[in-house]
C-alpha cells in the first residue's frame, strides 16, 4: 500500500450551514472548537467524525467532571476506567475483565436487535482485552405490563413487545455465542414505559501476563481490520443515543445495528487464537462510532497516528462514502495493530476461522488520524482533539427535590389504620411485577454453557468456578451481582445510589465472597436540565462514598443520558455491578433453604456508636417500628431509654413509604429510602465471609424488596421447604413494618441448630445481632407472634401467584 504523502491537499471543506450542524448535534461553540483544532473548515467526513466522537455517548462531556470523584484504585485493580474494560487481579495468575454498558435507546426502537447488540458490544469489550467471557448478566427495566386503568392499553401492549423482544434478543445472542447468563435484575416501573433500560454486564478471564490493550504503537506496523464487513447500519447510533426521543424516533430504526452472534463467536475464537501468536501489538473492538472511535482512540492511547485507506475496508454494500464507512456501527468487527513482518501469522488465523482480515493502514509517528478514500485525503485530524481534548461541560447543577410526598397520601393512611390480612398482602406482593419469579426470562437464557455455573439466576448473586485454579475440586470462584433502585434514587439520589452499591455488594457477600471491585451504568435524563445534573452529581457522590467504604473501586462503566421520551424523564437509575472473589468455590453459600430443621437466623446491625445490649431479645428492625403509634408501645420505647419515640416512628414511616409494600399494597410512594450505615454494611460483609469460610451457614438471603416476609417466602417456595417463625412480641412491635419493611444490612441465615451459638458469637464480634427466629421444614410458611398467626399459607398457595404472574401478564390480551 502507498503511504499517504506528508504534503497533501487538505480534505475538501464542506459547506457548513446551521442545519448541517444541527443534524450532527454540534453546537456553534463546538463548531468553533473544530475550526480551531483543524485550522480550517472540516470536510463532511471530518464533521461526521467530530459529531460521533463528541457525542455524549462517546465523550462523556456532561458527566466526566463528576466521574472524576469516583474511587478507581486498589491493590487488586490492574486496569481502571479508560480502557475497553476494567481488570482486577483474582489470584493464581488470573485476572478478570468486566464492565457494564447501556443499550437503552436502541432497545426501545428495535427491542430484539437493540438488546442483542448490547450483549455483543459488551462481550467484545471483554475479549478485546484477551479475556474469554465467563458470564453475562443484565439489568432490565421496563414499563408496566399489567393492565391498569391509569395506563393506555396501547402503552401496555408496547411494553409487552419490548419485554418479549429484549429478552429474546439477549437470549439469542448470548446463547449462540456460548456464554452463560446469570440473570441480574428485571424491574417494572411506569417511568420506563417510553424508555426501557437495558444494561448488559459481561465478565471474562485472562491470564495476568496475557492482557491486551487498545493501544497502537510501533511506526510502520500494519493496521488490520478483522471480522464482519462494513455496511450502512448503525450510522450515527452514538449520536442517536445522545438525544431525547421525540415523536418519530421510531423512524431511527435504521440507526440500530443488527447483530450476528455466530460471527461474534468466530471472532472470539479467532482473536484469542491470534493473540497467542504474539504478533498482535494492540487491539480494540469497533463498537459505538465504529472505525472512527477505534482508530483515533488506539492512536491517542499510544501517542501515534493511524493512516487508513478506506478502499481496503471490507464492505457489504456498494458505493459507500467515506462518511458512511467511518461512521458505520456494523457489528462484530475489530481493529488490530500487528508487528510489522508478522502480519501473515495473524491473517492465517482469521482465514482458518473464515473471517475477513485485511491490512487497511499503517501506524505513523504523528498523533493524527488520516483517512484516505479513492486516493483522496478525506480526514486529517489530531487524535487528541477527538479524545482527551473533546469538549467538557460543567453543566449547571441545580437542586433536586422529589415531587413525591414526605407523608403517606390519604388513601395510604386509611389503609394503614385498617385491620389487615397479612397473608393476602403477602400473596399480592408475591404476584407483583417486581417480586414475582423471573423464570420466564431466565429459562430463555443458556445459564450453564462452559460448565462453570455454581449459582445461576434467581439467587442473590451469580457464582462461577474458575477452572484450573486452587486445588482440584476446590477451585477459586467469582461471585457477581447487579443492583439498582430507581425509586429510591428518585426520592434521594445520593442515598439511593449508596443503597445500589451496598445491596449489590451484599448479594455478593452473602455467597461468602469478598466484594473487591465495581462497575457502574449511570442512567439519567437530560443533562441540560439542572435538576437532572443535580441527580447525577448526587448519585456519583453516593457511589463514591459507598464504594470507598466497602472497598470496591469503580473500574469502568458507562453513562447513559437523555433517557427521556417526550420530555418525560426516567427515575435516576444508577446500576452497580459488583464482583467478589471466593477462595474455594465449593464453600459458596446458596440463597434458599437447603434442608428441614435448620434454625432460621435474622442478622441485623447494632446501631453504630451504641453498645450491644446482651439482654436484647429480638427487635425486628434496627429501630422498632410502629404506626399508628399506640400509646402503650410508645411507653415501652420510652422506658428503653431510646431517642424520641415519635421521631423514630416518623423516620420508620418515611422509610416504609419507599418500600415495595407501600407501592403495591398501599398504592402510594412517599418518604425516603431506608437509612444506611456503611460502616455496619462493611462489617456485615466481613461477618458473612467469616461464617461462610467456617461453613457455619446453609443459606443466606438479603432482606430487600418486600421485606422479611418476601425473603422467607421466596426461600421457601424455591426450595420447597417451609418455615415456621414464632416470636414473642418484641420481634414484631408492629407486624406490618416488621414483616414488610426493607431495612439495610439485614439478612436471613439458616444453619444447624448446634451452630447457632457460634454464629451469635461471631455476629457479636462484628457488631451484629444474630437471633434465632424460627425453623425450616414442613409444607407451609407460618409466621406467628406469641403463637398468634400473622401469616399462614401452604407453599403451593404461595407459589401460584409468584411463579406464573409474569408470563400470565405477557400473555393476557390488553383490552382497550
Amino acid at each position: 500500500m502507498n503511504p499517504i504523502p506528508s504534503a497533501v491537499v487538505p480534505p475538501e471543506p464542506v459547506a457548513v450551514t446551521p442545519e448541517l450542524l444541527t443534524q450532527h448535534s454540534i453546537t456553534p461553540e463546538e463548531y468553533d472548537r473544530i475550526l480551531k483544532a483543524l485550522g480550517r473548515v472540516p470536510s463532511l467526513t471530518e464533521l461526521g467524525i467530530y459529531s460521533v466522537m463528541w457525542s455524549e455517548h462517546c465523550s462523556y462531556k456532561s458527566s466526566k467532571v463528576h466521574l472524576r470523584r469516583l474511587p478507581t484504585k486498589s491493590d487488586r485493580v490492574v486496569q481502571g476506567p479508560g480502557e475497553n474494560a476494567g481488570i482486577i487481579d483474582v489470584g493464581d495468575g488470573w485476572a478478570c475483565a468486566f464492565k457494564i454498558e447501556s443499550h437503552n435507546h436502541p432497545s426501545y426502537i428495535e427491542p430484539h436487535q437493540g438488546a442483542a447488540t448490547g450483549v455483543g458490544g459488551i462481550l467484545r469489550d471483554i475479549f478485546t482485552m484477551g479475556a474469554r467471557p465467563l458470564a453475562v448478566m443484565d439489568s432490565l427495566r421496563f414499563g408496566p405490563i399489567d393492565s391498569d386503568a391509569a395506563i393506555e392499553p396501547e402503552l401496555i401492549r408496547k411494553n409487552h413487545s419490548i419485554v418479549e423482544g429484549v429478552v429474546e434478543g439477549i437470549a439469542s445472542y448470548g446463547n449462540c455465542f456460548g456464554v452463560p447468563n446469570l440473570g441480574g435484575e428485571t424491574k417494572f416501573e411506569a417511568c420506563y414505559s417510553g424508555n426501557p433500560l437495558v444494561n448488559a454486564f459481561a465478565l471474562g478471564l485472562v491470564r495476568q501476563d496475557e492482557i491486551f490493550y487498545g493501544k497502537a504503537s510501533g511506526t510502520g506496523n500494519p493496521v488490520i481490520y478483522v471480522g464482519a464487513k462494513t455496511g450502512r447500519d448503525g450510522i450515527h447510533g452514538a449520536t442517536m443515543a445522545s438525544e431525547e426521543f421525540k415523536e418519530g424516533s421510531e423512524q431511527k430504526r435504521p440507526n440500530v445495528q443488527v447483530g450476528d452472534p455466530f460471527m461474534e463467536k468466530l471472532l472470539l475464537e479467532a482473536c484469542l487464537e491470534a493473540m497467542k501468536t504474539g504478533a498482535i501489538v494492540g487491539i480494540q473492538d469497533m463498537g459505538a462510532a465504529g472505525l472512527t472511535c477505534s482508530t483515533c482512540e488506539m492512536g491517542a492511547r499510544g501517542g501515534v497516528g493511524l493512516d487508513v485507506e478506506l478502499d481496503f475496508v471490507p464492505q457489504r454494500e456498494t458505493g459507500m462514502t467515506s462518511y458512511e464507512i467511518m461512521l458505520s456501527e456494523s457489528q462484530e468487527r475489530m481493529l488490530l495493530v500487528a508487528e510489522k513482518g508478522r502480519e501473515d501469522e495473524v491473517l492465517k488465523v482469521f482465514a482458518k476461522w473464515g473471517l475477513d482480515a485485511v491490512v487497511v493502514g499503517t501506524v505513523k509517528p504523528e498523533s493524527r488520524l488520516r483517512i484516505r478514500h479513492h486516493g483522496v485525503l478525506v480526514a486529517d485530524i489530531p487524535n487528541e482533539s477527538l479524545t482527551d481534548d473533546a469538549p467538557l461541560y460543567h453543566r449547571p447543577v441545580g437542586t433536586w427535590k422529589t415531587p413525591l410526598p414526605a407523608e403517606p397520601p390519604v388513601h395510604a393512611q386509611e389503609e394503614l389504620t385498617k385491620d389487615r390480612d397479612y397473608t393476602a398482602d403477602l400473596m399480592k406482593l408475591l404476584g407483583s411485577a417486581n417480586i414475582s419469579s423471573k423464570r420466564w426470562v431466565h429459562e430463555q437464557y443458556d445459564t450453564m454453557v462452559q460448565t462453570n455455573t455454581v449459582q445461576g439466576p434467581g439467587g442473590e448473586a451469580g457464582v462461577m468456578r474458575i477452572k484450573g485454579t486452587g486445588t482440584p475440586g476446590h477451585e477459586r470462584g467469582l461471585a457477581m451481582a447487579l443492583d439498582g433502585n430507581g425509586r429510591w434514587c428518585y426520592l434521594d439520589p445520593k442515598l439511593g445510589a449508596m443503597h445500589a452499591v451496598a445491596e449489590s455488594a451484599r448479594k455478593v457477600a452473602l455467597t461468602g465472597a469478598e466484594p473487591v471491585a465495581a462497575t457502574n451504568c449511570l442512567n439519567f435524563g437530560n443533562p441540560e436540565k439542572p435538576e437532572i445534573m443535580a441527580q447525577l452529581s448526587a448519585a456519583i457522590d453516593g457511589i463514591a462514598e459507598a464504594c470507598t467504604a466497602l472497598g470496591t473501586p469503580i473500574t469502568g462503566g458507562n453513562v447513559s443520558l437523555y433517557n427521556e421520551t417526550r420530555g418525560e424523564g426516567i427515575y435516576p437509575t444508577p446500576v452497580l455491578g459488583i464482583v467478589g472473589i471466593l477462595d474455594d468455590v465449593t464453600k459458596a453459600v446458596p440463597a434458599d433453604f437447603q434442608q428441614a430443621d435448620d434454625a432460621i437466623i435474622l442478622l441485623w446491625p447494632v446501631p453504630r456508636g451504641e453498645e450491644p445490649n446482651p439482654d436484647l431479645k429480638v427487635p425486628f428492625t434496627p429501630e422498632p417500628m410502629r404506626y399508628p403509634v399506640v400509646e402503650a408501645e410508645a411507653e415501652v420505647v420510652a422506658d428503653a431509654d431510646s431517642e424520641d419515640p415519635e421521631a423514630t416512628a416518623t423516620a420508620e414511616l418515611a422509610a416504609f413509604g419507599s418500600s415495595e409494600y407501600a407501592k403495591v399494597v398501599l398504592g402510594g410512594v412517599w418518604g425516603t429510602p431506608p437509612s444506611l450505615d456503611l460502616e455496619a454494611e462493611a462489617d456485615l460483609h466481613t461477618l458473612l465471609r467469616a461464617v461462610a469460610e467456617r461453613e457455619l451457614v446453609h443459606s443466606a438471603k438479603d432482606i430487600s424488596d418486600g421485606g422479611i416476609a418476601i425473603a422467607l417466602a421466596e426461600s421457601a417456595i424455591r426450595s420447597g421447604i417451609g418455615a415456621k417463625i414464632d416470636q414473642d412480641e418484641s420481634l414484631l412491635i408492629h407486624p406490618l413494618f416488621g414483616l414488610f419493611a426493607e431495612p439495610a444490612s439485614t439478612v436471613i441465615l439458616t444453619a444447624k441448630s448446634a451452630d447457632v451459638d457460634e454464629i451469635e458469637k461471631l455476629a457479636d464480634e462484628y457488631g451484629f445481632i444474630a437471633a434465632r427466629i424460627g425453623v425450616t421444614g414442613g409444607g407451609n410458611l407460618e409466621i406467628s407472634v406469641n403463637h398468634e398467626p400473622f401469616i399462614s399459607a401452604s407453599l403451593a398457595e404461595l407459589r401460584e401467584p409468584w411463579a406464573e404472574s409474569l408470563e400470565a401478564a405477557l400473555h393476557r390480551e390488553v383490552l382497550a
Partner: protein
Amino acid sequence: MKFGVIVFPGSNCDHDTYNVIAEIAHQPVQFLWHDSEDLKSVDAVLVPGGFAYGDYLRTGAIARFSPVMDAVKKFAAGGGLVLGICNGFQILTESGLLPGALMRNAGLKYICKQVHLRTETADSAFTNSLEKGEVLQIPIGHAEGNYFCTPEELKRLEAEDRIAFRYATADGAVTAEANPNGSLSNIAGVLNEGRNVLGMMPHPDRSSEKLLGSVDGWKVFESMIGALAAK
C-alpha cells in the same frame, strides 16, 4: 481409549465435553476440526452442543456437509461409538445417522433448565451402567429439541428398543407436563440400528460434577468407557 470432540464453527460445548473426558474421565481426548476427514484414530466421537454454522438454514443442516461428517459416517458404519449432544443430536439426524428430526420447541422459545429423564433401555454402549427405568436429572438448553419422526419410524424405534431416554417426572412418570418441548412420545434420546450411535438433547456434559448440581450425566460417559474397555 481415545476420544475425539468435533469442533464446528459455532460449536460452544466443545470445551465442556472435552473437559469431562480430560478432567473427570481422565482419558485421552482431542479436538477434531470440521474441515478434515482425519479422525486421528479415536475410539469414540463426541459431537458437542452449540450452534454449528450459526444454525443458519436449519440446525445441523450445514454441518452435515462438513468433511468431518463423511468420516463420522464411515466410522459409525464400522461400529464406532458416536454420541451427539444437543446440537450434536440435530447434526446426527440431519446426517441421516439417526432417524427423525428436531423441530422448534412447542413453546417456540429457547429453554434452559434441569429436567428428568427416564432410562428406557440399558442395552447400549451409552446406557449400560444404568438400569431400565432409572431416573436421571440432566439439564436441557435448546430452542429446537422437539423430536419428530413418522409413525412407522416410531413403531420401529419402540419395537427395536432404540428409545434411550424419555422426559419424565422426578418419579419417572412419562407425562405431558414433564415434556419440555413437545417431543413425540416424550423422546429425549434415540439410538441407531447398530446401537453404537446415540443422540440426546439433554446435556450429560453439564451434569457430570457435583458442583454443577447433578452427576447423573456422568453415567452416560461411564457407560461409554465401560463399553470401550470391554471391546
